[in-house]
């Protein structure tokens, strides 16, 4: 009888040794702060004194605040339009870029540049462009006889403007993701479809988009999480104004923690944000399980 041989060249603990430093970092810089945050959400803490346990008072105050509904609505609204905008523009840009014309690399780099540019710098420059009377856009529109609205100080347009700038910044990133997805679609399939008589619309809707669905759901997950990273743009463009019109949960956490020194209250807001993000991500995975078609 042949003895079964096990081919182990390392001890059981060797992989753990390699992973250990990362685990230490994860523990001290992620898990402990997340756990501490949960507790602090039930306290009143101004950093000077020790945290004082106050039960659900922070949440009661939050839900009674007349502006809180607006802040949550702003957060969800910005998320929705950012996700839609960045996916649509990311996809369209990917389709445009997905050809072998000369100079394509230049355009890829140019479209990607805002992604790697500091949000604060972009926020400042866009504030200049969109500023009333002296901003570049206002001057151009006045020359053609159009009175521009107050893009950043009118509560009807401010949030949409911030969303636009955020989409403009990040579209290049989603373009790259969609480009990878598009290029993974075998040209044989497309050629077979052409041979079978499919027109452009049918090729896009019946073949390309279904075969892209794993990419779409990956991009959707990333876009939802990215949508909440709007602090720097809001901070450099509007400070959450006018009157909370561009205040989101992220910015409100900053204001309460670092301007008003109400750290306990800020933590409570942060957990509401975590809940919302968690729910959206969960929803996304449930949808993916039912509808996404993996290539295999």
């Amino acid at each position, binding site marked *: 009888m042949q003895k079964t041989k096990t081919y182990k060249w390392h001890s059981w603990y060797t992989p753990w040794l390699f992973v250990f430093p990362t685990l230490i970092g994860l523990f001290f810089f992620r898990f402990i702060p997340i756990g501490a945050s949960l507790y602090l959400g039930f306290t009143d803490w*101004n*950093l*000077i*004194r*020790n945290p004082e346990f106050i039960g659900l008072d922070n949440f009661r105050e939050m839900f009674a605040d007349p502006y809180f509904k607006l802040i949550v609505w702003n957060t969800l609204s910005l998320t929705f339009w950012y996700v839609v905008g960045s996916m649509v523009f990311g996809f369209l840009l990917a389709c445009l870029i997905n050809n072998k014309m000369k100079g394509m690399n230049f355009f890829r780099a140019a479209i990607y540049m805002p992604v790697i540019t500091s949000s604060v710098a972009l926020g400042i420059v866009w*504030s*200049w462009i969109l*500023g*009333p*009377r*002296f*901003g570049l856009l*206002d001057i151009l529109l006045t020359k053609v006889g159009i009175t521009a609205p*107050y893009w*950043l*100080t*009118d*509560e009807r347009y401010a949030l949409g403007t911030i969303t636009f700038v955020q989409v403009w910044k990040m579209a290049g990133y989603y373009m790259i993701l969609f480009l990878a997805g598009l290029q993974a679609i075998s040209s044989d399939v497309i050629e077979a479809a052409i041979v079978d008589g499919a027109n452009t619309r049918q090729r896009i809707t019946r073949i390309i988009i279904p075969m892209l669905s794993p990419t779409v759901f990956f991009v959707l997950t990333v876009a939802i999480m990215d949508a909440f990273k709007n602090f720097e743009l809001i*901070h450099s463009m*509007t*400070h*959450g*104004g*006018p*009157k*909370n019109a561009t205040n989101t949960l992220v910015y409100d956490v*900053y*204001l309460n923690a*670092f*301007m*008003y*020194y109400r750290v306990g209250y800020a933590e409570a807001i942060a957990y509401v944000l975590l809940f919302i993000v968690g729910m959206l991500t969960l929803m996304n995975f449930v949808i993916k399980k039912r509808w996404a078609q993996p290539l295999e």
Partner: protein
Amino acid sequence: MKKIFLIAIVALLCFSVFAQAQSEKAAAETKDVTLEWWTWDPEMIEQNKSIIAAFEAQNPGVKVNNTIVDSKEYWTKLRIQAQQKRLPDVFTLSSGYIEEWASEGLLRNLDDLVKNDPSLFENFYQPIWDVTKSIAASDHYYAIPFALVNTVLYYNKDMFDQAGIAYPTDDWTWDQFLDAAKKLTVDKDNDGKIDQYGFWFYGRYAHAESFVFANNGSFVDRKTMRFAPDANAQKALRMLTDMVLVDKSAPAQQDMSALKNQQVFPNGLCAMWVDGGWYINDFKKKSDLNWGIVRVPQGPDGGKRVTYAWPDSYALSPNTAHPEEAWKFAKFVAGEGLTLDQFMAGKIPAYKGLTESEAFLTLAGEEHRADMQLLKDMASDEMTTSYTKGWSEWRGYGAADSMGLNGTIDGITNGKVTYDKAMADAETSINKVLSRYYK
């Protein structure tokens, strides 16, 4: 072989860490006293080194460690130090936090040190020291002021000359101010857009409170600690908002939102502007700006003149092991050991030796001698301030400037809400904040 080599490297690294710690400990043991000094301006790193060198030379046996934390993180870090009862011996303290920190016992009561220093107010301006008591809402000294900031009325001399109006004086009435503002509002190229406004303001504390105090008014009832603008304050606020809505001699806040507040006046977009005297520091570099300053015009209910001012100060840790040395050092960095170039032009040193020097009067050039003389005079004025606990939140300061009273006033001038509704809403929301701090 490789294993031995690796172990040796790790051992060497560990050893060097301990060796460093030991050497620091040894250094600390040879000196008698080490003071920790925290400040918030990274640009002052070299200056601070020379200040420390000068102090240490005059005080052998005392060593000073300066920690500079960028102003964005300074308060968070300092608060955590406070919670751990490890505040530095001497640290920079802005007026907005004096009351809260004093009431929490985080600032050393300086009364005994002041009492035992009979020459203190020969060298420092007592009014500036006294205003820190009212900011702290206390009868005790908690802060060592080093620079006073106050608000002034800036005016553009060229614009006044072009309009043929006499320059403002300290005796100007509000009627004269409003009249001049209207005459100085000009559409230069007749395109229907005003190119030069007579005045510029928005909901900022330095803008609104200057006029409220000039009219002997107040936003906060100091007996109840609630937001309750009195009639004099309402008159000041209506006067200002009517300049935008009725006289059209000042722009709405949103019309100037393409620029920073402090860019409007130096860019020739308005003839007059009220804000802190420290902007003189910026104007020094603008040779084409022909500026002057006067006191903020007194209102009709003005009465005795008070100056709206607030100092930058140092404070001592309540647990400092070396109060005498810390006090000596704090006075040194509050002015005794400083030179004028270590101050922003337009901030008034609390140390008489600096403010009463000839160099102070010519800081902004010989042509602004009278303006600097005014600042020097204001150092001896009776002063008032507007701070309370939770001030940043209810007033709408810094990153919160679209909220609070700042956002409310901007909503009025932007035509989004009527004056009465805005102030009624403000009263509710501001008092919610104040009632958290003052039961």
